[in-house]
């Protein structure tokens, strides 16, 4: 049966997925902004920094609005993104309050973990869709061809 540590751990894993999604959306918007401002052909450190800072300040909701108004077409997975935004906001603002004293029982923690699993799933679905915009299909990454062994770090 799950412990409270299992719940906290899964919360951390789901939050990391939300931040991966935020990061990837930010990367797309930074690239789109750099193209719009011709920063690829004519690099300008000051304007580049301003662009980065502006995007770095934005919440997931603001990033999604920015993506809708950018040249990137997201019509085909708008639903996935909306679902991910809702999941992320619930996770970060009200997850523990909504479940409240469930954390004190094994049955309650099972429910919390099931909910976290769904939230994580919604976030990963959106992340995979956004990665495809950048030309990366995570569903096709051959896991058996990843490097193995150990890096001495």
């Amino acid at each position, binding site marked *: 049966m799950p412990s409270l*540590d299992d*719940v*906290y*751990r*899964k*919360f*951390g*894993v789901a*939050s*990391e997925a939300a*931040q*991966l999604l*935020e*990061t990837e959306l930010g990367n797309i918007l930074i690239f789109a902004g750099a193209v719009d401002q011709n920063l690829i052909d004519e690099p300008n450190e000051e304007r580049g920094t301003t662009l980065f800072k502006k995007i*770095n300040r934005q*919440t997931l909701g603001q990033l999604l609005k920015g993506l809708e108004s950018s040249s990137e077409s997201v019509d085909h997975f708008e639903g996935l993104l909306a679902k991910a935004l809702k999941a992320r906001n619930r996770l*970060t*603002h*009200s*997850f*523990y*309050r909504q479940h409240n*004293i469930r954390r004190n029982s094994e049955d309650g923690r099972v429910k919390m973990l099931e909910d976290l699993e769904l939230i994580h799933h919604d976030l990963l679905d959106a992340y995979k869709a956004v990665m495809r915009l950048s030309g990366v299909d995570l569903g096709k990454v051959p896991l058996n061809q990843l490097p193995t062994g150990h890096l001495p*770090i």
Partner: protein
Amino acid sequence: MDYDDEQTRDVYAHYGLAMYLAQTLEHAIVNALVILRLPEKEKYTRQDIDEFMEGNFQKTLGALLKQLKSEISFPPDLESVLVEALNRRNYLAHHYFRVRAETFVTRNGRTQMLHELQSDQRLFEKADEQLAKAMKPLRLTHGATDSAYEAEYKAMCQRLGI
């Protein structure tokens, strides 16, 4: 499970605990806003209070803190701890795993992350405790005593059959 795996799992768990304490602090601020309305409690029904709380739960921690500061003046040490908690909460919620991505892949880095997450947990607890202490005289004056809380909690559990 090897040491690296276990340490990685600990980082996620300490992050989850830190965010639990941050959400507890958000709740404490909403409770404080309710306590500030106790002097006029006859004006409000239970439904009014539920709606008031629900409306405030939709707000961000920053917006809640701004509202609280507009209604009450805090001792400077409490104000600074609340502002620090707000900044750390926002950093954890929006940037933490990205900023710490490289740190996360080394043992020393993960040790550092565990220390900072534990320090954040203490910060959120301190903010929560100091806020509760600051609000206590007002709530006691208006009958919201610890024993009244306890009785209300027991009655609620009984109603819900838990």
